[in-house]
């Protein structure tokens, strides 16, 4: 399992690769459960991944390095991946899940047992994959040393090639490890709300929303406006979009917080400089396998939004917005952009479900889970990024200090740099994760 992805890229499989793959598989099968993660794999002469990193071998460009450079690069990537996966926490979690799974009465509640077992499987899979990398690296090194001793030039060049391939592969894995959170693969809703300051802020809110729409489109996500409350003169007071696609939540969650704009206001005849704020919230849309907040049909009140007059045959309108109120929690959801009431209702229901799921996650967050804040939780003091259009031009993330001098490209959706730097900073800085 651990070697699958890697051997896929080694399309020109030959005897050497098969040998390595076999030896890894044998080890996988021979080690069961968490035992797999307990021991640091070692090469024949006692090298470990950690010792390679601490030996400080120079990591050169792919094209020019010797095997030590490749090995050091791979070892560094493995360490980074471990840090990003929050390795230490992962092990504790896995241990707890194993204890839970071994309880004799676990299957009394098959749904719960299913969830636990699925989570256990997914964590174990992640750990096995990384352990696979560690072993694989050391095998390659052993093989290379052997080839040198035996003066087998062919074997040596194959081993080098394998090391280089692995170096590239684990580099890709570094990025994937940024999005290892349970909800990261989900689609999501992005909500933007204008801060105080009237038209100026509402215009800013719509600029931000537009930035996300373009960003999501460029990433190949499907974007749908769910709800939009237009400002009186320009912009939006508040809007919700649905962003559909793999890892939409994982990326977009980096955008949660208050975004600040400084510019000469186009709405100010005196051409003065204005500062505006917009708040962004991101809500994951949980997959079918996750446990949802149970909505009781009788707890809901469904209203025609902006209904006026006699209705029915009297009125011909394409306006069929629906608002759903969850009475016990007071949480509401509105959808007005679908073309039929039925579908507005279905979409509003989906938004409501996600909001209630999020509330439930927040409630459970005291235990361990990470959670993102809803719009109402976000304090206007929680600024994450500043966009300056005047007197100079710059966008700067206040959390990571990542900055870009071209605000236009950022507002046209080029925000991956900000997202990745935030994600890596929030996971990589924490050495305790290793």
């Amino acid at each position, binding site marked *: 399992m651990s070697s699958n992805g890697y051997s896929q890229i080694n399309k020109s499989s030959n005897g050497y690769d098969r040998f390595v793959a076999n030896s890894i598989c044998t080890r996988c099968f021979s080690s069961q459960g968490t035992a797999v993660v307990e021991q640091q794999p070692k090469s024949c002469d006692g090298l470990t991944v950690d010792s390679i990193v601490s030996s400080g071998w120079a990591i050169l460009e792919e094209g020019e390095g010797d095997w030590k450079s490749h090995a050091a690069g791979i070892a560094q990537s493995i360490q980074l991946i471990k840090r990003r996966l929050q390795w230490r926490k992962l092990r504790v979690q896995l241990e707890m899940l194993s204890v839970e799974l071994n309880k004799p009465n676990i299957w009394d509640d098959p749904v719960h047992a299913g969830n636990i077992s699925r989570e256990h499987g997914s964590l174990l899979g992640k750990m096995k994959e990384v352990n696979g990398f560690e072993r694989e690296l050391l095998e390659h090194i052993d093989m290379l040393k052997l080839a040198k001793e035996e003066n087998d030039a062919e074997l040596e060049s194959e081993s080098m090639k394998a090391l280089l391939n692995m170096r590239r592969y684990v580099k890709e894995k570094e990025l994937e490890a940024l999005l290892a959170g349970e909800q990261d693969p989900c689609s999501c809703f992005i909500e933007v709300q204008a801060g105080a300051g009237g038209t100026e802020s509402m215009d800013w809110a719509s600029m931000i929303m*537009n930035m996300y*729409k*373009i960003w999501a*489109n*460029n990433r190949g996500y*499907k*974007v*749908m*406006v769910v709800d939009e409350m*237009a400002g009186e003169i320009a912009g939006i007071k508040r809007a919700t979009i649905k962003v*559909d696609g793999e890892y939409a939540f994982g990326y977009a969650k980096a955008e949660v917080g208050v975004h600040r704009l400084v510019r000469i206001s186009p709405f100010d005849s005196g051409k003065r400089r204005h500062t505006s704020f917009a708040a962004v919230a991101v809500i994951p849309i949980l997959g079918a396998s996750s446990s949802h907040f149970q909505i009781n049909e009788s707890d809901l009140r*469904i*209203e*025609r939004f902006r*209904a*006026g*007059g*006699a*209705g*029915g*045959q*009297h*009125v*011909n*309108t*394409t*306006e*069929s917005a*629906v608002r759903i109120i969850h009475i016990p929690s007071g949480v509401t959801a509105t959808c007005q*952009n*679908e*073309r*039929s*009431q*039925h*579908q507005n209702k279905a979409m509003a229901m989906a938004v409501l479900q996600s909001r209630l799921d999020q509330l439930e996650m927040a409630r459970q967050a005291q235990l361990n889970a990470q959670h993102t804040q809803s719009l109402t939780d976000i304090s206007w003091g929680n600024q994450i990024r500043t966009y300056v259009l005047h007197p100079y031009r710059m966008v700067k993330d206040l959390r990571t200090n990542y900055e870009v001098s071209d605000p236009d490209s950022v507002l046209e*959706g080029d925000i991956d740099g900000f997202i990745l730097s935030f994600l890596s900073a929030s996971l990589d800085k924490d050495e305790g994760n290793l």
Partner: protein
Amino acid sequence: MMRNCFSSSIRQTLYPSTSLFKYLQKPHPAKSFPISSSSSCSFPTTTPLFLRPPIHSASFPELKKWQDWAKHLALSVGPKFLESDNGPDADLLCRELKWLLEDVVVDDENATASAASGVVKLRAGLEELYALWRQRIEERRPFQYLVGCEHWRDLVLCVREGVLIPRPETEQIVDLVEEVICEDGGMREGLWVDLGTGSGALSVAIGRLLLDAGRVIATDLSPIAASVAAFNVRRYGLQDKVDVRLGSWFEPLQDVNEKPVGLVSNPPYIPGDHIFGLQAEVARHEPRIALDGGKNGMDALLHICEGAATLLKPGGFFALETNGEKQSEFLVDFMTGKMKGRFRDVRVVSDFAGVHRFVSGFCC
């Protein structure tokens, strides 16, 4: 890179929600059938925009120019219509403009490719688009007649002048039917009738809820309505299940031996003297025959109540749409008073705006 930027900028400008497109392209998940080629099911007079072939095109700036012009026209309306007769405001008109673009602009892989060269493929020429939008604003022609369809529940129903545009409220009749069917599975296999079907909305939606043995007979006095209903029935592949018959209320049912298990109707219920005060879209453009319910608006409703008592199977279900509180109360009094013993569990159901819209119950 350039190409990418361009197509995404079109997406942003013209139609941020592209998801509807795919949904629009497939009329029925199971069956497909000829739409325009076969004469037997061709749409009477003009074909709805979204079903027309994309034989027109415009350059991106030309289309953008039209969009800007149309938006400007919509914004110039402001709250004028809303204040005069509860008509659409500028916001709503802008949303309609977006939907018009969704129906008229072709969104597939080829289209994205040709958009890269600056050409947008269209289902109607620019000239027609200018004319259509002018009709919307200046003549208050209903948006649904403009595009030739109305999205209703999860359906896209074709409509044209001469047939009532189905209202969102009426969707709830299908919810009521669904409830009854869930409780009594036998209802799924019986005969249903839809009196005054108009575009066929209720019949198509109910037809899709029924099992193989279930059938619907839809009646309408208007030949235009009957042909539009038949078109919608075919479009959803329900021609073996839904039978559209021309004639007034119960008349076309005279040769039916089977007693129906259910009856639904959204008959004309607006009191005759209210017709001229209605919103321009309704009063000037929609068929009076589908709206005018006689002096107090109850002519058709009372006729249907009386007929339902003898038509329906014992235990048969009915759901009727009314003008609101006054009519629904009157109907309930009538059914439990003068027609005592013929119906049971008669109740009033509100629509989502809180109006006492529907009367439902069972036959004894």
